[in-house]
């Protein structure tokens, strides 16, 4: 039985890397990027504070725009909190509304 199991595993592995391209229409391309995980879920942060401008700076672009979830990997509930925090921080001049080039 253990032998069988091991066999199954070794058979399964080589097949897989070839799998994704074969499974046409898959959302990922041939090479897949490392999956981004939500920074806040990982660190178990429940409150996104507008006072932490340094931290919020990671979630805005060079022009001062809020970065989309697809770029930062933040989960939806946390992205909403981040967006509110950034807007508050802008209001009190901790973060820019826009930066001139």
């Amino acid at each position: 039985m253990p032998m069988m199991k091991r066999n199954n595993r070794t058979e399964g592995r080589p097949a897989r890397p070839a799998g994704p391209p074969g499974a046409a229409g898959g959302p990922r391309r041939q090479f897949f990027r490392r999956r981004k995980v939500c920074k806040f879920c990982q660190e178990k942060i429940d409150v996104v504070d507008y006072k932490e401008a340094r931290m919020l700076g990671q979630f805005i672009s060079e022009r001062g725009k809020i970065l989309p979830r697809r770029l930062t990997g933040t989960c939806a509930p946390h992205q909403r909190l981040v967006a509110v925090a950034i807007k508050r921080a802008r209001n009190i001049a901790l973060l820019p509304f826009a930066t001139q080039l």
Partner: protein
Amino acid sequence: MHKYEVMFIIRPDTPEEEVEKLVSLMEGFVTGAGGKMEKIEKLGRRRLAYRVERQREGFYVLFVFEGVHATVNELERRMRVTDAVIKFLTVRIDEEQKRAAKLAKARAEKQAKRPKASTQPPPDIAPIPAAPPDEPEATQA
């Protein structure tokens, strides 16, 4: 009674003792209008992200207090008429804190339950430190 957090910016050209006076004055407005001060924090001189009233820097002060809407109204009105205060932001924080406490509690309960069934089924938090195992999983999908 709700809990509020007020952050305001004082002009950078205000002398030190004036700042002190202004802060205690503002504190007086809060307590005078039925508020209960919880925390006063001087965050110090910071660069502003954009110019406010031609200033590029500002002296940040943070108040945390419990009060009613009249307290906030009064404080905001006073700050608006005080020239040395160039910007302020009021945030109500009791709801947020309640939410955070609830989440933390839920997590603690989950954690308490977990040790029994910690083998495989809930892989949501445990395997994160070991990042690489994620990748073969991704291939499967």
